[in-house]
């Protein structure tokens, strides 16, 4: 379990490492909500910087020196829509075997 401050500090650190302080200043990054129990966080960034922040988050491999990986579930302009998409993601049923490319016998 990570504290909210540990998490957001690590995100800042990842952005600064990749894009420098100037890049980080363009993001207007802020924490909106943090659910420690379900390990979910909602963060706010500017629209123009969303790809930058997503890239930085993708490069994170630890939080406070403990191994971790962060995945972006959804990106939305409103918190309400985001909450709905998070709920849909959590309720996702196990996938049936797909019938796309089939392996050779």
């Amino acid at each position, binding site marked *: 379990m990570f504290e909210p401050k540990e998490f957001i500090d690590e995100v800042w650190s990842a952005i600064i*490492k*990749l894009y420098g302080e100037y890049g980080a200043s363009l993001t207007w990054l802020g924490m909106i909500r943090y659910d420690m129990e379900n390990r979910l966080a909602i963060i706010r960034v500017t629209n123009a910087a969303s*790809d930058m922040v*997503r*890239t930085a*988050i*993708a*490069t994170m*491999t630890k939080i406070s020196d403990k*191994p*971790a*990986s962060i*995945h*972006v579930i959804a990106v939305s302009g409103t918190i309400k829509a985001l909450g709905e998409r998070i709920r849909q993601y959590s309720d996702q049923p*196990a*996938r*049936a*075997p*797909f019938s*796309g*490319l*089939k*392996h*050779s016998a």
Partner: protein
Amino acid sequence: MRRLYCDLHLRPNIRDFRQTTSMIRRAARLGYRLIAITLPRSPAEEESRRIRCACDEAGIDFATRVDLRPNTPNELIHDLRKLRREFEIVCVLCGSKDVSRQAAKDRRVDLINFPSVSFRERFFDLAEAELASNSLASFEIDMEPLLTSETPARIRLLSSLRRETSIADGFNVPIVVSSGASDERFIRKPTETAITTSLFGLERQRALDTVSENPARIARRNREKLSPSFVAPGIRVVRRGKNC
């Protein structure tokens, strides 16, 4: 049409079946529909069967892959002769210029990969790209070194990748971006992997192709070639028997 996301380079320890299954499930959950797992040159039948079952349970397609690391071009030719028909994906990890040239020329090679982060040991230049453009080889980029290397090495790696992707684009050499993950925490969602390629200059649609269309095309092509009904490109056996 919905994209079929593929990760052609997962490297779990296949003797640790729990870790392998965990990585397979993680890849399935993150949205991949096809994965290729690196197997040893002579994989045990039982290991392959178990991996295939685990993939079927997770609802994800599985392709067999072998990574060749030859020291000389002749060794590469020998390995390809022996192993090409045994695996669906063949990747050459190039450690020298001679090997990388031979790999780019040979139509039996699917992927060319330069595992070193040092620019002195990466040989994807204009000559290499020209050779690759006349064969079937694609240029593979693994994400794990980008995630695990520290600042000075990562900066040099990004510079190298930017130059190499620009060269590959110039010669229309397909680029495939894979996780190269040896642990499940290095697997990223396909869209996140695609976005990360902006670090070395790929624009969005091309980036999405590197994790979907390009790897899927390789798997499709090789499965067709390895199928019993394949004779030659464009020719296949439709029916066998006395009165066909």
